[in-house]
């Protein structure tokens, strides 16, 4: 594992933007462009848009985001454990079982609270 591997990722990240950008720019050059106000209206089932688009959203989404955050952070801890698992003793298994049990308790708590039920 050398730094070269990460140079590739960096290059990939920098250059991969051009791959989708080229067709889009090409389309801009080739395609006709005759805008008019009616054509540029935002679609809303044939009527003119009413009110503001960026309205308040359902609070339920926020709860799901929180539960996801909880799990995602804990999942990161599982990766080093999985990599080193072959070198660890049986104790590692019980340790992780306790860790996952705590996760499950959190999941059961949110479940019982009704946070996972779409209202």
């Amino acid at each position, binding site marked *: 594992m050398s730094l070269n591997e990460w140079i590739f990722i960096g290059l*990939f990240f920098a250059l991969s933007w051009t791959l989708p950008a080229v067709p*889009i720019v090409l389309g801009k050059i080739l395609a006709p462009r005759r805008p008019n106000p009616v054509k540029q209206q935002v679609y*809303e089932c044939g009527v003119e848009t009413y009110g503001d688009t960026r309205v308040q959203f359902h609070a339920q989404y926020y709860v*799901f985001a929180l539960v996801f955050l909880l799990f*995602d952070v804990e999942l990161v801890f599982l990766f080093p454990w999985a990599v080193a698992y072959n070198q660890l003793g049986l104790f590692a298994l019980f340790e992780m079982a306790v860790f996952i049990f705590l996760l499950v308790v959190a999941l059961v708590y949110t479940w019982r609270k009704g946070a996972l039920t779409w209202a």
Partner: protein
Amino acid sequence: MTELLQDIGLSHGLAVLIAKTVGVFVVGIFGLLWTLVGIWIERKLAGRFQDRLGPNRVGPFGLIQTVADTVKILLKEDLMPTGVDRWVFNLAPIVSVVSVILIWAVVPFSGSWIGTDLNIGVLYLVAVGAFGTVAILMAGWGSNNKFALLSAFRSVAQLISYEVPMVLALLVPVLLSGSMSTQTIVQEQHIMYLFAVPLTVLIFLTSGQAETGRGPFDLLEAESELVSGFHIEYSGMKFGMFYVAEFLHAFTIGVLTAILFMGGWRGPFAEDVPLLGFVYLMIKSLVAYVVLIWVRMTLPRLRIDQLLDFNWKFLVPLSLVNLLVVAFVWKVVPDTDQISNLGDAIVPTLVLLVVNIAMIAVVGAILRERGRRERQRIEARMTAAKPAAAGD
């Protein structure tokens, strides 16, 4: 290639840089060109599943249909509705393609052909894959359209939810091989992990299908309620790029399944002939991908509450249990830490397979029971409603 460039008198650093740049374009352009073929395969199959012929006019077997579509979409006017957030609106299709192409950097095409063999490869592909969610949110927010925004919210809820079982499923091959590098995971599969941990493969495919927003999980573009969702205001090549990203992401799930569970490029003579390894990888990926198309074409769309329930109340607990059981078996079976050839792998694989079949049987029984209860509930409601309707 680095040696070749050094021979013509370039310094080592510059030679590596040029070789890597070429590598980037080869991998990236291959991904984009593959889309042309892949979309044809998918449309042809979709046609057959729906009792039609699929594309068959342009070129032999309609092979050039996708090229014709690309030219058409290139010549379409690129509309920009009033009130859009310009930067966000224009960047969204690009980000969405980039998030998928970046995954291909760690795909081992054969023993020696790999963009880069990161020692945290699996973590990397989870990380860059999550970029796609941002792209969808950008498209929905930037479009200044209520349908697009609703779709974006829904899709974010869906994508982040299904990421949890997906990552839990990814942990299993990491655990079995003791490495996060994609190349090492392939090399460690003396017997395909598919035969050792079929339940994990099912979890991975299900959550992968949801991550790409396809099949029964395509409610982020539900045309009957959200008029095609987050990309409704996009036209021309920008829409085309969303289409490319969607296809490529779905195919990438097939590629990842092939690498992590089906032995990647491994096969007869693949060690000596890199091209053969590449062919094996593509065949295996297509097999996994066809299964995904099959599911997509067969099952009806879920509602959002069913979708989230299925994830949090079934798939997440199941994948947690699955991970613990696999870890337990792996520790109990002796000598699993020194598997170096096919013979060593047979006993652990068989034990894991038996345990997995038992788990699948239990899970199947639970699902059947739930289905039966749901059916009875609905039937009871319908028979209760009938007399009232007759009395009107």
